[in-house]
């Protein structure tokens, strides 16, 4: 019997391919439920494309854990004194996966393509022209100073794509090579089965000597979170980024060979909030919005609903960002104050204790962030006489249609900062972005010219300290006028097998940055 057992173990070991451990080589298996449309981040934002996309395509710069830009495709860079031009000095000898050298022409072509096709128009909005004095120098000429520019030229956003492939005149958004990519990053595409897996192989001619460490990255798609978490628990996969379910996090934390970290999500900056339609009869009164903010117990959401894994969000900027402003009105739970504000606004409690009733939209697919919070808000707001009817949307497009057509009263929403406030924060508050039919525009219809002026100035301020001050002033006004009740940060975590993985991705972009330094044992 014992011999059979030993034989079985030996066979199992052979089958599972356990090899001698070494620092270099090996395969990293990443699990995700995100299904990329294609793999070209120049024309497609979002986590799903960015994780494989940043492995395939290099960017001029990359960022470390502390928001410092680091050389990548660009060896060095310099802003002109007036901040109206950025010179990129490209690394010499860098090539695309097909062997073509990377030149400043490719950089110019890439930035123009992104500017024309990428959904985040503000990234390269102020870029007026790109000069290419020689093959290894690109000068970006700006219409106004643009301090967000380096971040826009970093991982997940400012990828350099080869002009000789994507510059053939076809619409870059629907280019056939978007699923059959040629980039210059540490890994090249070996196989893309939409909705199943992506296999990336080591780029032997990567421009950083000695990297990447891994031979191969496999990104496996899971249809549902439960089976994905089970796969992580059973060791079938090595790394699970963007894990947001607090019960899943708690479950995996019990596994002795798994390490869980919340590092790597500062740039994506995900916030969960309750949005008001400020055009609505009731919610156009700022006192009503403040009353609701005072009636919500953020501690309960963070600690009871999210098991302490999320943190309280107090304003438009994620706490991990250098532009986060801590000194804003905190709206600590105060039911008496909420009731007084509602009285003052002209909504006295009726004989049944109800002041008015409203509808709250949410997406049940986001169980912990939207459904559970929405279900908590109903009895909680009842305490101050607001009757909330919950209205669940069957799927994302249904919800997006309703909210982007401004046909809502209250809605739950999760929105990302995307690195710099210019990219992911301004869009929610500036008057010019009150649009019909565009989700994650200013669907609250909030408009304050002072905020507009402050955000505009902050977006163009090159002095970091002054920029922080401008953003702090803008955030103070926004929080004071509550177009949104800020609730919590999304508890994104990365789970990885700590016996196997070395140098996990902990920079501000997390797994949406090159995994060239990651090792497996």
């Amino acid at each position, binding site marked *: 019997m014992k011999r059979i057992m030993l034989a079985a173990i030996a066979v199992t070991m052979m089958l599972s391919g356990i090899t001698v451990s070494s620092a270099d080589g090996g395969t990293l298996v990443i699990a995700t439920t995100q299904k990329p*449309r294609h793999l070209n981040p120049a024309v497609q934002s979002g986590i799903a494309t960015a994780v494989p996309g940043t492995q395939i395509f290099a960017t001029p710069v990359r960022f470390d854990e502390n928001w410092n830009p680091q050389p990548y495709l660009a060896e060095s860079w310099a802003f002109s004194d007036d901040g109206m031009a950025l010179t990129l000095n490209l690394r010499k000898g860098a090539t695309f996966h097909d062997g073509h050298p990377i030149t400043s022409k490719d950089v110019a072509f890439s930035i123009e393509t992104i500017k024309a096709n990428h959904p*985040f128009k503000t990234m390269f909005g102020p870029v007026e022209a790109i000069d290419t004095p020689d093959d290894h120098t690109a000068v970006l000429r700006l219409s106004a100073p643009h301090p967000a520019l380096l971040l826009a030229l970093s991982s997940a956003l400012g990828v350099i794509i080869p002009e000789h492939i994507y510059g053939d005149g076809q619409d870059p958004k629907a280019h056939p090579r978007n699923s059959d990519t040629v980039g210059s990053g540490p890994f090249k595409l070996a196989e893309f089965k939409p909705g199943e897996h992506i296999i990336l192989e080591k780029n032997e001619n990567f421009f950083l000597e000695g990297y990447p460490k891994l031979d191969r990255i*496999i990104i496996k798609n899971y249809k*549902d979170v439960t089976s994905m978490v*089970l796969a992580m*628990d059973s060791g*079938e996969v090595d790394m699970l980024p963007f894990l947001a379910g607090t019960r899943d996090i708690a479950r995996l934390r019990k596994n002795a060979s798994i390490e869980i970290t919340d590092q790597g999500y500062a740039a994506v900056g995900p916030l969960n909030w309750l949005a008001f339609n400020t055009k609505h009869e009731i919610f156009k009164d700022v006192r009503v919005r403040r009353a609701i903010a005072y009636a919500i117990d953020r501690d309960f959401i963070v600690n009871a609903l999210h098991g302490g894994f999320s943190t309280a969000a107090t304003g438009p900027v994620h706490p991990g960002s250098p532009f986060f402003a801590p000194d804003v009105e905190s709206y600590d739970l105060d039911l008496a104050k909420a009731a007084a504000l509602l009285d003052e606004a002209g909504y006295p409690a009726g004989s049944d204790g109800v002041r008015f009733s409203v509808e709250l939209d949410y997406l049940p697919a986001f169980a912990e962030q939207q459904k559970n919070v929405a279900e908590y808000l109903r009895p909680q707001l009842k305490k101050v006489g607001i009757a909330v009817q919950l209205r669940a949307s069957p*799927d994302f497009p*249904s919800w997006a249609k309703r909210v982007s057509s401004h046909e809502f009263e209250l809605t739950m929403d999760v929105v990302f900062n995307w690195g710099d406030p210019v990219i992911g924060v301004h869009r929610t508050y500036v008057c010019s972005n009150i649009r019909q039919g565009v989700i994650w525009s200013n669907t609250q219809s909030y408009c304050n010219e002072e905020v507009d002026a402050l955000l505009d100035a902050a977006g163009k301020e090159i002095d970091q300290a002054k920029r922080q001050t401008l953003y702090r002033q803008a955030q103070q006004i926004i929080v004071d006028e509550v177009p949104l009740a800020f609730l919590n940060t999304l508890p994104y975590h990365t789970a990885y097998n700590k016996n196997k993985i070395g140098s996990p991705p902990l920079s501000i972009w997390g797994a949406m940055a090159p995994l060239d330094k990651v090792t497996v044992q």
Partner: protein
Amino acid sequence: MGLIWLIGKRLLYAVVLITAVLVLNFSLLHLAPGDPADAIAGEMGGATAELLAEIRALYGLDKPFLVQLGLYLQRAYQGDLGMSFYYNLPVVDLILQRLPATILLVITALIFATVGGTALGVLAARKPGGFTSSMVTLLSLVGYAAPIFWTGLMLIILFGVVIPFFPISGLYNVAKMATGLSLAVDIAHHLVLPSFTLGVVYLALYSRLTRASMLEVMQADYIRTARAKGARERTVYLRHALRNAILPVVTMAGLQFGSLISGAVLVETVFNWPGLGTLVFESVIARDYPTVLGVLFFSATLVIAANLFTDLVYRMIDPRIRLRD
């Protein structure tokens, strides 16, 4: 003559039926709030009004509904199922990539359910009220009552986590980079839990059906005749009784082929099986009209083919059907 007429009639039905499936689903999809551009905007974490308009123009979503429908049908009848809005790849490629996994799953589950169910049913019918019979009845009740996704998740916890004996997700382990025979073994290994999960409901049903049918048939005069002429008990059971008793199972199996495919959606989701079921589910959420319609086109064709096949099996088993037409 009869056979050709039967097939010809069925082909005519098929064209009408598939057109109805396409028109109905095209309309339903367009009634759902939000369109592919909204779904793509969600995927991208935001968009601009101009970009949304460009996406709509790119996929012809700016044209009136009837024009879109007409164009789609016209192309579909020419064998062109169009491009996926979501993946920007030909729908046929996406389907052909996923179809083998679904067929493998459904056929394996069907064989497991019919063969296993019939065997259990025959076993249970031998001594009604006996221990074997009671156990089969009990197990089939449990198997039939348990929801597919629940069975699947329980099996995952049991065989994937507690006793990690079977792989719990996917068609094969892509990290192994296996080819040839070892790939086939890996696929078979991965197939065990999903096909069991999908098949067990039908296995339960067919075992009860066979048992009831066998008990009824065993009372028939021709069984007494067979026994009287001295046929062995085994021959009586398998040749005389089972052949008659199995007709309802064949009927059910044929009719349920469609529900087997819809059951596959759940199983594929739970076991991360890269088949058509998950493709259609994801495509509905992404409002990827061409892909949804393409999958429905293929599955409608599969169901029609399965029904035709059932009719042919019928004629093989029961000579009376052959005589009637």
